[in-house]
C-alpha cells in the first residue's frame, strides 16, 4: 500500500459500522465511559478550552506591553493576568496535553492492549482534573491570584491579598490527575504488552511516555505537599515559610522547584515521543539510533530530578550548590542533543513525504534546538546571574514549551487525527496554519532574548522607553500566533463532518495502532496482535500475527 494523496477513494476508506465513537450515544455514555479513547477526547475538549483561556490572558497582557506605561490595566490586574496565564498553561494545558490526549488514546493501541491497566482510575483522573480546574477557575472569577504561578513565599503565604488558598487547592487537586495518569501508564507499559512486544520493540512514543510517567509519579507529590504547606500557612498563620515567624522563604523555593523542574520534562518528553513517530514515517525508513533515543528519555527523566537548584542561583543559595547544579544542568542537555542528531540522521537518504505532521516535527527540531541551546546559556552561572528573572528566561522556556511542546502536540494531533476520527484534515489549510504559527511564534519570542539580555525584568507591567520597539514586535507576533492557533480549531471541526474518510492506515505507517480500523472498535483490536517486527520497520510490510 503506498502513501495516499490528499483525497482517498471513499469506499475503500469507510470506517467500520461500529467503532468507539458510535457504539453508544448520549451524555452519560461519555461522562461514565471507561474507554481510554473516549477519555482522551474528554481531555481534548477540556484542555482546548483551557488553552484558549490561557491564550486570552496572554493576548491581554501583550496588549498592555505595547506601551511603556501601565496604562491599559491596573497593576494588580496585570499581575493576575500573567499569573492566570502561567497556571492555566502549565497545569491545565501543557502537563496534560500530549499524555492525557494522545497518550491515553494511543498507549494501549501501540502496545496491543484492549485498554489501560486501570480504566476507572483513568476516568477518575479526568474528573479530578476538572474539579481542580473548577477550583482554579472559581478563584479566578472571584478575583484571581497575583502571586505568579510560582507562588514564592512569603508574598503568597502572607502578603498577597488574593485567593491563594483556593488556587493552590485547585492546583493540588489537579496534581492527582497527573499522578493517576502516570501510574496507569507505568503499570500498563510493564504488564500489558502484546505477545512479542518486547521493551526494545516498543515505539519511542511509549518510551517517552514511560519516562514522563516516572516524573509525574515521583515529582508531583512534592509540589502537592509544598502547596498544602502554603495553604496551611495562609489559613492558620503557621510559620513555615514566613521569616517573621522564624520560617525560611527559600525552603519553599527548593520544595517548589524540586517538582517544577522535572515538570518541564513532563512537558517536553511526550512531544519528543511524537517526533520520533512522525520522522520515520515520513522518511519511510527506520529511525536512526533507536536505543539511544529510548535511553536518553530515561536519562532525561532521572537527571531532571537533580538540577532544580539552577532556579536558585541568585536566591542566596551557596556558591558550592550553584556549582553542583550548574554542572548537572549541563549534563541534562546531552541526551536531548543526542535525540536531535538522531532525528536529523533519520532524514538522511530517506524518501521524504511532505505532509503537515512532518512540518510540525521539523519545526519542533529547529525551535527545540534553539530553546535547548539557550538552556546552556542559563545553566552557565554568570550568564544566569544577569538574565535570571528577565525576558531571556521567558524566551528560553517558550521556545521549548511552545516552539517545542505545542508544535509536537499539533504534529501529533494531525498525525493521529485520522485514527481518532476516521477522517482526514485538509492538508492545504493545515500547512498554511503551521506556517503562520511558525512565523508568529518566532516574531513573538525571538525579540524577547534581546530584551532579556538588555535587562528587562519579567512580570513588569511598565518598562523603560528604550524597550518599546522590541515589545511591539513581540506583541505583533503574538497576534499572528493567536490567529495561527484558531485556524486548526476550525478545520478540525469541519473535518469531523466533511473530511474524507481516512481508512485504517492513510500514512502507510508502522505501529500496531495503524493495523486496526479508523476509528478503532471499543476493544481496539479484532484479534490479539502478535508482534514479530521491531518498531519502524519501514523497509518491510507491516506484519500482524
Amino acid at each position, binding site marked *: 500500500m503506498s*502513501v495516499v494523496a490528499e483525497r482517498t477513494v471513499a469506499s475503500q476508506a469507510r470506517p467500520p459500522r461500529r467503532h468507539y465513537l458510535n457504539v453508544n450515544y448520549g451524555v452519560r455514555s461519555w461522562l461514565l465511559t471507561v474507554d481510554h479513547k473516549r477519555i482522551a477526547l474528554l481531555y481534548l475538549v477540556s484542555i482546548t478550552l483551557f488553552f484558549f483561556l490561557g491564550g486570552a490572558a496572554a493576548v491581554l497582557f501583550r496588549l498592555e506591553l505595547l506601551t511603556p506605561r501601565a496604562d491599559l490595566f491596573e*497593576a*494588580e490586574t496585570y*499581575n493576575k493576568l500573567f499569573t492566570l496565564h502561567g497556571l492555566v498553561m502549565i497545569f491545565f494545558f501543557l502537563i496534560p496535553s500530549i499524555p492525557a490526549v494522545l497518550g491515553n488514546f494511543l498507549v494501549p493501541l501501540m502496545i496491543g492492549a484492549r485498554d489501560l491497566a486501570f480504566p476507572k482510575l483513568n476516568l477518575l483522573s479526568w474528573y479530578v482534573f476538572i474539579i481542580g480546574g473548577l477550583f482554579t477557575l472559581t478563584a479566578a472569577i472571584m478575583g484571581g491570584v497575583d502571586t505568579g504561578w*510560582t507562588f*514564592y513565599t*512569603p508574598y503568597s503565604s502572607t*502578603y498577597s491579598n488574593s485567593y491563594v488558598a483556593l488556587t493552590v487547592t485547585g492546583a493540588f487537586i489537579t496534581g492527582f490527575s497527573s499522578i493517576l495518569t502516570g501510574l496507569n501508564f507505568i503499570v500498563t507499559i510493564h504488564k500489558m504488552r502484546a505477545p512479542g512486544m518486547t521493551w526494545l520493540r516498543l515505539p519511542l512514543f511509549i518510551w517517552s511516555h514511560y519516562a514522563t510517567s516516572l516524573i509525574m509519579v515521583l515529582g508531583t507529590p512534592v509540589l502537592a505537599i509544598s502547596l498544602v504547606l502554603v495553604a496551611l500557612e495562609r489559613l492558620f498563620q503557621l510559620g513555615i515559610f514566613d*521569616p*517573621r515567624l522564624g520560617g525560611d*522563604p527559600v525552603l519553599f523555593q527548593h520544595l517548589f522547584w524540586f517538582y517544577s523542574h522535572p515538570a518541564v520534562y513532563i512537558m517536553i518528553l511526550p512531544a519528543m515521543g511524537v517526533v520520533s513517530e512522525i520522522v520515520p514515517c515520513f*522518511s*519511510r*525508513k527506520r529511525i*536512526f*539510533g533507536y536505543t539511544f533515543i529510548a535511553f536518553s528519555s530515561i536519562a532525561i527523566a532521572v537527571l531532571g530530578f537533580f538540577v532544580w537548584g539552577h532556579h536558585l542561583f*541568585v*536566591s*542566596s543559595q551557596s*556558591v558550592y550548590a550553584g*556549582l553542583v547544579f*550548574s*554542572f548537572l544542568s*549541563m*549534563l541534562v542537555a*546531552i541526551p536531548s542533543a*543526542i535525540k536531535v*542528531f538522531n532525528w*536529523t*540522521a533519520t*532524514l*538522511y*537518504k530517506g*524518501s*521524504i513525504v*511532505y505532509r503537515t505532521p512532518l512540518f510540525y516535527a521539523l519545526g519542533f*527540531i*529547529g525551535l527545540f534546538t*534553539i530553546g535547548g*541551546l*539557550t538552556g*546552556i546559556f542559563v*545553566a*552557565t*552561572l*554568570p550568564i544566569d*546571574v*544577569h538574565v535570571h*528573572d528577565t525576558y531571556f528566561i521567558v524566551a528560553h522556556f517558550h521556545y521549548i514549551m511552545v516552539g517545542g511542546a505545542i508544535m509536537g502536540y499539533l504534529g501529533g494531533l494531525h498525525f493521529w487525527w485520522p485514527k481518532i476520527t476516521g477522517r482526514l484534515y485538509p492538508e492545504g489549510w493545515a500547512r498554511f496554519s503551521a506556517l503562520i504559527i511558525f512565523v508568529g511564534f518566532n516574531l513573538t519570542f525571538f525579540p524577547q532574548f534581546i530584551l532579556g*539580555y*538588555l*535587562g528587562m*525584568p519579567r*512580570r*513588569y507591567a*511598565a518598562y*523603560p*522607553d*528604550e524597550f518599546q*520597539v522590541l515589545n511591539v514586535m513581540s506583541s505583533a507576533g503574538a497576534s499572528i500566533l493567536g490567529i495561527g492557533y484558531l485556524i486548526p480549531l476550525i478545520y478540525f471541526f469541519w473535518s469531523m463532518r466533511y473530511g474524507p474518510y481516512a481508512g485504517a492506515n492513510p500514512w502507510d505507517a508502522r505501529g500496531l495502532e495503524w493495523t486496526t480500523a479508523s476509528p478503532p472498535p471499543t476493544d481496539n483490536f479484532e484479534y490479539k496482535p502478535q508482534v514479530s517486527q521491531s518498531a519502524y520497520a519501514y523497509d518491510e510490510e507491516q506484519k500482524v500475527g
Partner: protein
Amino acid sequence: MFEDLPLFPVRASTFAGQVDTLYFFLVAMATFFVVLIFGTVIFFTAKYRRRSATERPPPIHLDMRLEILWTIIPLILVMISFGWGASLFVHMSQAPEDALELRAVGRQWMWKLQHPSGAREINQMHVPVGKPVKVILASEDVVHSFYVPAFRIKMDVVPGRYTATWFEATREGEFHLFCAEYCGTQHSGMIGRVVAMKPVDYQRWLTSQASEEPIAVSGERLFQQLRCESCHQTTSNEKGPTLTGLFGRRVKLESGESVLADEAYIRESILNPHNQIVAGYRPIMPTYQGQISEDALHQIIVYLRTLGRAPEEKNPS
C-alpha cells in the same frame, strides 16, 4: 526609530566585559549548531524528497562512532561553558576586603540606600568609579532582587537574612536599577538608578548630603545604650566572648563546628543567641528579637567591624 533600538546593554563594570565575552562564546556556539541543524534538516528534506511512489530508501545501520561523536563533542562544549562560567562566578562571589560597603534595603516597593557616612538615598545609589563596592542587602517584607543590568549583577533580597553582591564600576553614568523578583502590585515600579561618579565627585556628593551620623557612630551609641558591654568586654570573661577582632575570624562553637563571624553570624547571634553557642560559654545571652530594628542591627554590625578586623580567610561565602 532604530536609533532608539538598543540591542545590547552598556558595559559599566569590570564584570560586564567578562560576562559578555562568555555570552558571545555561547552565542557563537549556539549559532553554529542552529545553522548546522536547520541547514542539515532543510538540505536533507529537500534533497531526499520522495520522487516516486515505489522509491525505497537504502537501509541505514547504527553507527556507533557517530553516536559517540555527537555525544562527546556536545559534552566537551558544555563542560567548557561550565568551567568558564564557574570560575567567573566564583570570582563574582568574593567581594574584596577593602570594598566600600553600602547597604540596600528593599521593601514594597522602594529601595533604601545608606552609605557608611550615614547618607541615605531612596531609589538611587551614588557610587564611585574604579573602586570595589559591596552592597549588603536586606528585605523588610517579601523576596526582592537587586539587579543592575549594566553591571551584570543580581542578588535576591531575602527577608530574615543578609545577602550581598559587589561590583566595580568602570565608567561614569546613570544606570537602571530594577527589582527582579516579583514582589507584588508595584513590582514594575520598584526601579531606580545607580549614579556612578569619579571618586572625587562622589566624595563631594557625600559631604553635600544632609549631615547624618556615620553608621558606625550610631552603632557605638546603640551598643552602649543596650548595655552590651556588661557581658562583652574588651577581654573575654566568663559571661561573654570579646568582640574585639571578632569580625572575619572563625569561631568555634559548642557543637564542634566552626563558623565564620560575618554579618549574618552577628545578626543571628543578636536575634537567636542560643542557636550557636560559642565553645566554653553558657547560653545566657538574652535575645533582642523584636527589640531591635533592622537598621539598628546593621549599625551595630558596622560598629563591630571597626573594633578590629581579623584577616578574612579566602573562601566563597
